[in-house]
């Protein structure tokens, strides 16, 4: 039996005594006075990001380098095609996985190799044995070097995390300034009907669990490549 009412009852009983608001005490760690109202705009405190596209792109590139994400600005579809084909050749891709979309359809046509599609039910083992997962995205975040994907924009839940190489195809207008902008964009895009999964991907999968030594590709992709058109 679910204990919903007993737990809510205990909570209400407990909250009858008021707790002091943070920032009213003195002492270490209490150096900043309390705000009148609970803050909603975090921009003045979060890491700074420039306004212009060039500043955003430069910061995204800098963060990508640190995260070991391969971030490339490409001029047009012709250049994207060249780069994709070169990448596929260099890594010896034999099979890719992707979903339906304007950019992904183009990439699939450009590569012309066996494909696993995740638009409807698919075989997990087929996806697992693909050499790369190619997806679109909802946004790129300059502040953190993150890619925003959802089940709707990036072909479900597993496509962006199961194959060993995740390739993201993004448009320049998707490169947003910071995290507040990214959450605002998700809200605008989906409103009250959110996809069942949304994810902020920041760099290829990593772990430091053995002697705090960074290893890429712990469980998810070992490589993350972002082409921004």
């Amino acid at each position, binding site marked *: 039996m679910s204990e919903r009412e007993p737990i809510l009852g205990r909570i209400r009983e407990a909250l009858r005594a008021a707790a002091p608001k943070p920032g009213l005490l003195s002492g270490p760690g209490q150096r900043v006075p309390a705000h009148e109202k609970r803050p909603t705009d975090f921009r003045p*405190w979060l890491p700074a990001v420039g306004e212009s596209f060039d500043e955003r792109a430069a910061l995204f590139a800098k963060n990508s380098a640190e995260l070991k994400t391969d971030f490339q600005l490409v001029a047009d579809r012709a250049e994207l095609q060249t780069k994709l084909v070169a990448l596929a050749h260099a890594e010896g891709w034999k099979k890719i996985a992707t979903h339906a979309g304007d950019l992904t359809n183009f990439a699939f046509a450009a590569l012309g190799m066996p494909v696993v599609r995740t638009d409807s039910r698919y075989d997990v083992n087929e996806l697992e044995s693909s050499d790369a997962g190619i997806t679109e995205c909802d946004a790129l975040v300059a502040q953190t070097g993150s890619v925003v994907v959802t089940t709707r924009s990036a072909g479900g839940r597993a496509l962006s995390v199961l194959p060993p190489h995740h390739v993201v195809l993004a448009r320049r207008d998707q490169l947003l300034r910071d995290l507040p902008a990214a959450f605002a964009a998700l809200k605008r895009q989906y409103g009250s009907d959110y*996809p069942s999964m949304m994810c902020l991907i920041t760099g290829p999968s990593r772990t430091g669990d053995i002697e705090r030594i960074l290893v890429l*590709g712990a469980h998810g992709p070992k490589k993350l490549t972002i082409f921004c058109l």
Partner: protein
Amino acid sequence: MSTVAQTFKETARRLTRDLRHRELIQNALGKYYVGRDEKKARFQNWQEARQAAAEIKWDAVNHLDKYLEEFVSKLEARGTKVFWASTGQQACDYIVEVAKKRNVRSIVKSKAMTGEEIHLAQALEKSGVEVVETDLGEYIVQLREEPPYHIVFPAMHLTRHEISDLFTKKLGTAPTDNPEELTMIARRTLRKKYCAADMGISGANFAVAETGMISLTTNEGNGRLSTSLPKVHVAVIGIEKVLPTLDDLALFLPMLATAGAAQAVSCYNTFIGGPRQDGESDGPEEFHVVLLDNGRTRLLADAEQRDTLHCIRCGACLNVCPIYKNIGGHTYGTTYMGPIGSVLTPHLRGLKEWKHLSFASSLCGACTEACPVKIDLHHHLLQNRRNAIRCASPWWEKLIFKGFVTLMNHPAFYRLGVKLGWFGQKFHWLVKGTRLDPMYAWTQSREAPPLALHTFKDYWRRKKS
């Protein structure tokens, strides 16, 4: 003295002298300090950000009933099954039941401290289901059959050699000194598990009330895989995890990563609001959220320490604690270790048996300063000491303090006491360092400085006259 306190003292004494242990901890944390300070410096104002985070958590915890109801109604509207559990046992029973109903044979589990708290893996294994921890550190300590050493870095007490030996013994792989190869062994082993598992279990770092979503942070991607491939997903969440709005994550995700793992943001921050929806090609058919009380409402009722429920389990207070750095994570014998564990555990498991943890502190305040949500940790440790004395103070301690009060309230007695002390100290050498020494607790590891015959009071009186 209770046995847990005794074990604690003995283990602590042993480990503080273990130089190899110290070296491992220093190595792991040294890298963390450098990265954390660098990431903190990127914030335009870290202290303001902390204050804002504390205020948001205050709002959430002090209107917990309202936000929980909002969170649950949003989740249920999209087909999630929500179970409210007063105790760990109820939570375990429910999850075992779900596993039975769906004929679950194997489970992949993403790191969840709530799971450790209620011994979920053990309960499931007892019912005949295989449970595999997928976080690399957790997987390693699971193979060693021991609890995690740290909230965020579960295997920080092991060298690559020990991990290689472990893998050789348990998985039959060739020995290697290369951390990357060791990680790839785990990757290959666990990939098969993900694809075959019938159920995925996770915790949650935040529960977003506004949109009815859990926010799950991992670096390895195990959280994503555990919640994408199996047909059932169960998330076990403490009731205090709520955040009012989705936008709040813009503040909390970078703060959690900076304080917890010295990263700008963690690799995968995943927001899950339900099982697979119509039109989606994958994801679990069932999504269960288990909301866990297990003593939290008792802590909520303590207004003085209610801010302990603001905790986002980043582990920053462990990393700076001189006690944790010396005695390590297993010594505590608790699910949550370090300063936050010392404050929490007496509330969750009883003050009488766990009050010794309130004394496992130098009261330096480093934990309070490190906490990204400004929990007043070192004062709470003092408050727990006070509470422990209130509920059970031994008669001899009462007597000593009565004597002390008399002494301090009567200057003549005090002066006499100081002179007697000076006189008595002449004979101290007779018993010094032995069990008969009234100052044994002090002198067994330190010198007792001599009391002066002429005190400051005498000097002051002479000078005035």
